[in-house]
Structures are given as C-alpha cells and as structure tokens.
C-alpha cells in the first residue's frame, strides 16, 4: 500500500501558514519627522510609543516643542497605564510569539528619557512643579535595577528636582546631595536661584539593542564611543565649559537581568529540547521503518517519525527572540548649565568638543535668545543634531 506522504506534508505547511501573522508595514523614508507621524497613524499599534519617542526627540531638535509635547504626553499616558492584564504582553510571554509582540514602552533608560524630555518642556512652559514630577518619574523608572548600585542613579533628574524645588521656594538640598553622590568625578555647581537661563545639552550617538544567544533570546546593548565628549557655551562675555552629567549608554547597560530574560531563556530551552526530540524521533522512526519488513513495525516507525516532525514544527514555531526595538535617536550624553542673563536679546553659541577639547565646527549651534524678564526662566534645549540657528 502507498503511504500518503503528500497530504501530511501539506497539513504541516497549512498549520505553519495558519499561524503566521501578517503585520502592517509602513514605508520608511529615513526622516523621523515624516516616518514617525506615518507610523503612529498607520503602523502596528504596539509600536506607537516607540515612534512617539523618536518623533518627540527629532521634533525637539528642530525646535518644534509643540509636536514633542503632544507625542510625549500620549506616550507617557501609555507608559503609566501598563498594570494588569494586557493581551500583547501575554502574547510576548507565550512560546509562539516574540517579545516584540508586546506594546512597546521601552526599557527603563528609554522611559526615563521620555520623562526627562517632557520635564524640559514643562520647565520651558513655566510649570516647574510638573517638570520636577517628570524628573522624579525619570529616576523612578530606573529604580528596579538588578544591581541596586545602579538603581535610580541618573544625576541630572535629581539635580533638576532640587533646582526646581529651590526655585519653588522649597529646600532642594536633599536632591542636590543625592545628585552629587551619583556624579562620578563631576563637581556639580551649587544652585543659583538668580540663574534664569537654563541650557539642556545632549550629544553623541545613543545606545542600541541587539539580540544574542543561540536563538536571539538575549537582549544586549551596543554602545559606540561618542565623537563629542563635552561642550562649551558662549553668551555675551561668558564662556562656560560643560562636562557630561549623565551617560545614557551607561544607564542602558547597567540595568541587569530582567524577569523577561528568564522567560525568554525558558523559551529557548523549550525550542532546543523540542528540536532535539524531533531529530531523534525522525531519524529513529525512519530508520525503524526502513529496516523492518514487518508492516506493523513500519507503521510504528512512521508514527514515531511523524511525532518527530510535529516536535520539529513546534520547535520551529517557538519564538524566544528578545525585543530589540530601540529608541534609536537618543543621545549618548546629557548635560546642563544655568546662568543669569539680563532682560533683552542675547546670542548664545554652543560648541561641541571632541575628546582632545577641539570644537567640531560643523556642530556649532547658534540660538538667538530674547530674555523677557529676569525672573522668568528661559529654557534652551540644544543637541549636536539640532537645527541652527534657532530663535527662542
């Protein structure tokens, strides 16, 4: 009797095809300010926050703080409502879906950066207490690192928490001391309550995620050295050297193990085990069927081979891949300076310096400032990829 191989093979293909999930793809142009809004509107909902993050960062560098505010507010709403039953997260934990099936909110360093950017915009809008709330949340997002030494160890959010508190009439010294204790090798300037010009700086390429391990189940962070390692601010007769206060790549790579890494590890073991069982059953079953002249033995052999095939299919369908979606336009370093300026127009320049202290001429930014009142803070945000000149 002829053994029906073809229907069995077809059945396997149908099962695999039936499990495949098409995803909505968005054509990318490479311009975040085009791709972001397009992906937010038409892309997979689970990537919405990722594109909101990217769009907000790009918008801030173009001086479009309204767009950044809108994107960050929506992203932070998603970020704050992740408790309880979530189908996407459940799917990400299952054997047969990758981690990237969950709604993206980012790793703690990415969530912290979302709050830091939003805090800067709140301060710009004159809402110091909401800015402080964001800096506190930035620190909070980083507070469950596996190694407690690295929990809540951002410098700038603590420093700004204290500065906002002091400017609001409170005592910001606790936060200042905390920030100073975290600042490795940097002496933080004491709070100057007359400083009405606050300059936030960011520079260098930020961290990226990549997958490692046999099945891509391990999440790793790739960092590259920054061609810019410090900056210099010039305004009126002032020349202010600015060292980095926070290293975003350091924050990204010091979180330690995640609970999800354990789940992905289990998935990888399951995938490996089912694959091995499949190999053994397939080879053993086919060998038994081929070696025997007894029909019953042949059928048993083929049955074992079929079970092996099923095990191989299950193994193939198991997806232990880590989520490598990355907020890919983050900076390497953050820094900050503040100083008093009298009311009136001023021209502020920011030079970004290489490790030897030379200014990288093509990165110099010019900002035309109009200080309307000495008692109202003027907040300036400058990135090494900012548009120049800007008028604030």
């Amino acid at each position, binding site marked *: 009797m002829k053994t*029906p191989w073809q229907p069995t093979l077809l059945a396997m293909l149908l099962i695999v095809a039936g499990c495949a999930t098409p995803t909505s793809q968005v054509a990318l142009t490479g311009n975040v300010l085009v791709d972001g809004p397009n992906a937010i509107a038409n892309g997979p909902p689970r990537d919405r926050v990722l594109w909101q993050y990217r769009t907000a960062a790009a918008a801030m560098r173009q001086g479009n703080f309204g767009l950044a505010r809108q994107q960050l507010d929506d992203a932070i709403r998603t970020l704050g409502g*992740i408790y309880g039953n979530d189908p996407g997260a459940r799917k990400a934990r299952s054997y047969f879906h990758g981690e990237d099936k969950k709604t993206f909110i980012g790793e703690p360093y990415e969530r912290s950066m979302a709050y830091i950017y939003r805090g800067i915009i709140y301060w710009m809008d004159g809402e110091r207490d909401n800015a402080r709330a964001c800096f506190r949340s930035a620190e909070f997002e980083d507070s469950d690192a596996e190694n407690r030494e690295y929990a809540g160890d951002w410098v700038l959010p603590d420093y700004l928490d204290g500065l906002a508190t002091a400017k609001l009439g409170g005592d910001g010294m606790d936060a200042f001391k905390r920030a100073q204790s975290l600042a490795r090798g940097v002496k933080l300037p004491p709070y100057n309550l007359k400083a009405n010009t606050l300059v936030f700086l960011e520079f260098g390429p930020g961290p990226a995620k990549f997958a490692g391990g046999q099945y891509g189940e391990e999440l790793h962070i790739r960092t590259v050295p920054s061609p810019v390692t410090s900056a210099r601010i010039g305004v009126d007769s002032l020349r202010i050297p600015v060292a980095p206060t926070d290293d975003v790549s350091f924050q990204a790579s010091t979180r330690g193990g995640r609970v999800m890494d354990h789940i992905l590890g289990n998935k990888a073991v399951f995938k490996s085990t089912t694959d091995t069982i499949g190999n053994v059953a397939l080879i053993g079953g086919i060998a038994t069927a081929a070696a025997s002249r007894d029909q019953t033995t042949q059928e048993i052999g083929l*049955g074992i081979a079929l079970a092996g095939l099923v095990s191989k299919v299950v193994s193939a369908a198991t997806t232990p891949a880590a989520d490598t979606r990355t907020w890919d336009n983050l900076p390497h370093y953050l820094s900050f300076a503040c100083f008093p300026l009298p009311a009136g127009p001023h021209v502020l320049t920011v030079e970004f310096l290489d490790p030897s202290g030379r200014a990288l001429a093509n990165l110099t930014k010019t900002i035309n400032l109009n200080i309307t009142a000495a008692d109202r803070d003027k907040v300036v945000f400058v990135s090494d990829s900012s548009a120049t000149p800007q008028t604030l």
Partner: protein
Amino acid sequence: MKPLFAKICVPLCGVAVAAFFAGCASSGVKNPSGVPVTHMNADEQGFVAGTGVESQDLVHVADKMARSILDIPQIANASTAPTVVLQPVDNQTRFPINKDIFLTRIRAQLNSKARGKVMFLARNQMEALEKERNLKREGAVTASANPMVQEFKGADYFLTGSLQGISTRTAAGTSDYILYDFHLIDARTSGIVWEDSAEIKKQGLEDAAYR
C-alpha cells in the same frame, strides 16, 4: 484494517485546514468588530488604570474638600459671602498633572451646591477685566455704573493646596501614595482657617513582559 498512518493522517489534515482558516480569519486584527464607546462615571475606575492621579481620585478629593469647606464657621456663619481667590496647587508628586483641575472642581462644586455662600474672584481674568474697565473709563464702551469707582474686590481668603507623594518600586510591584492637602488662608491675617486632606494609595504589578 486501515493502516495506522492513514488513520493519523486524516484527522491531522482536518486540524491543519481548520488551523489555517482560523489563523487567517483573525491574524493581525485586534478587536475586528471594534469596541463600542463606553460611558463611565467620573468616580469609577475605568479599564485603563495606572497608579497615578485619575478622574475617580479627583472626584473623591474635590467632593470631600467642597463639603468640608462649607462646614467652617467663617463661611457657614458669614453675614456676607466671603471672597476667595484660587492659588495654584503645588504638585510635589512624581506625576505631572493638570493641577488646576482640582481647584476648578472644588470651585464648581461650591458654586453649584452652596450658591451665595462663597464668592470666587476671577483673578486669572484680570488682564481682560482691566482692559474692559479702561474702555469704559475712556468712554469707548457703555457702562452700567460709574467706571471710575473701584469695584474689583479684594480677597478674604486664598484657597490652595499641595499634592505630595511617596513612591516605591520593587520586584513585588509599584506603590504610589498621594496626600492631597488643601487649605484656606485668611488674606488679612495669613492664618490658615481651614485645612483638610485626603489620602489615596494604589499598587500595581506590571506584566512580567515589562519587568
């Protein structure tokens, strides 16, 4: 007797075809028939919840404060309605919020439930009010009373408050405690004539996929 392999093959093919069509029918589509609009009461927790300040907290706190203010003798026994100016609330929590929403709701509650007992002054509209008064003084627009007489009222009391929080995150989850404190300050003496507070604590644990 049918061969064992053929016996296995037929149901397997059936299951595969069913899986194929089931997979195609729902793949990539979440809530294919949509989710109808759900009306929620502002004081109930919705299906989208975090550990931060939410509408049910606002309703609970503002209602409590409005009831409490009306009971104090300075307002309950006043012969003429005291004038109150709202001062911004100080948000000391880790949650960025529209903090004025608390005072707006307290004011709305007091104005609707205890009409005439308290008068709120629209200090946030002073620029427009002064502009209108100047137009009247210049005769550019009509006036129902002598515009040269100063009628803008001074405050008897300032109503303000603060939101303070304690936040904790461990492997067991996230916990946020918020103390909502409001007080009424006598504008003449600087004395605090009324103060009340409400406390809300929330805890949650994210899905393991986010930990």
